């Protein structure tokens, strides 16, 4: 009965807590198990940011950190200076150059693309943004 009242007032069942904790820890596990994915993400990030500012590509760092309610992506990308003539944003983008195809690390099929409430801190180790409301995106593909 007490449980019923608890549930009525919205206290989450512990199985919900378990699911959420598992979701986060597996996201974190999978990222750390897929260094090739992180590497190609880093490559693409630098490429995009370089269109606007000069970055110190050799000293860029992209990492993931598991926090209380989300996995945050932390990108530390040192900026050397502005580009003298910013690339106009309007023209159609070049056909996307595929990132260097990551070698199959043996986990190929199981590497899941899950949208995650991950925030990016660009060159600023400030508090990460809060996860999107309702912690969306956990949809097993």
């Amino acid at each position: 009965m007490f449980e019923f009242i608890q549930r009525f007032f919205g206290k989450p069942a512990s199985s919900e807590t378990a699911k959420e904790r598992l979701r986060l820890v597996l996201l974190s596990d999978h990222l750390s198990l897929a260094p090739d994915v992180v590497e190609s993400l880093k490559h693409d990030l630098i490429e995009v940011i370089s269109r606007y500012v000069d970055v110190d590509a050799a000293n860029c760092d992209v990492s993931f950190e598991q926090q209380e309610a989300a996995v945050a992506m932390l990108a530390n990308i040192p900026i050397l200076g502005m580009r003298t003539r910013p690339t106009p944003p309007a023209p159609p983008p070049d056909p996307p150059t595929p990132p260097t195809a990551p070698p199959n690390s043996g986990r190929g099929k199981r590497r899941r693309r899950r949208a995650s409430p991950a925030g990016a801190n660009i060159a600023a180790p400030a508090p990460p943004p809060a996860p999107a409301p309702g912690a969306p995106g956990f949809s097993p593909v």
Partner: protein
Amino acid sequence: MIEQEAPAASAVPRKRGRAIVVTSGKGGVGKTTTTANLGAALGASGASVVLVDADVGLRNLDIVLGLEARVRHHVLDVLEGSATLDDALVTDKRVPTLRLLAAAQTREKDEVDTAAFRDLIASLRDRFDYVLIDCPAGIEKGFANAIVGADEAIVVCTPEVSAVRDADRVVGLLGDGRSVKLIVNRLRPALVRKGKMLSVDDVNAILRLPLLGVIADAPDVIVSTNKGEPVALDAASPVGEAYRLIAQRVAGTLTGEPEIPRERTFFEKLFGSLR
């Protein structure tokens, strides 16, 4: 199914049996109990089955099957040539088509040569319909040895965060080349209803494996292990029935979604306690 009527003997023509490793990553989720019961159920249905205990150093499959007094030689004796395979294979007391190849108790997993173990499994496949390999916990050399000769795997997982996380890791390590299926063990339907335990769907939303079956957390399993009698051979036990259905799914004679254990009714509880 291949030549079920002939019990294993050196003279029997070559079979092309299935080598299935039972694994989980995490310890204590019921790998050995699952191996014993699945083997007993497959054997009781007429197939020839050998159970290989790959948990070198922590031998347990023999005691769960009640065969601990009959073990004379173990898998390392066979690999090192100090015993023949026929010397080392122990025939089950109840199921004549079921054999056990025990692990070494006083040795270490690192002593087992991976290539030799693979060859051993290959030679067992020539003689039995099913080679079930009881994998040790962990993902180190014992795990590598246990999976090397198997082209199928059964992952045993309990509805706990630690077991699911480890199972997820193990599925990644098993690779894409193996057929991998899931048994959810020790489910407590009443706790699931109250939101206090992960459901089968919760577990499989993460692992996303074909489900072979779900075993309820039931006293029958503990009692049968105490006695060294696989519950799968107990015709009256609902958990035994669940293992028999899993065996049928493994054999391919049963298809469709497995049944999820439900809570027992008041009368079932009453009569269950009288058994």
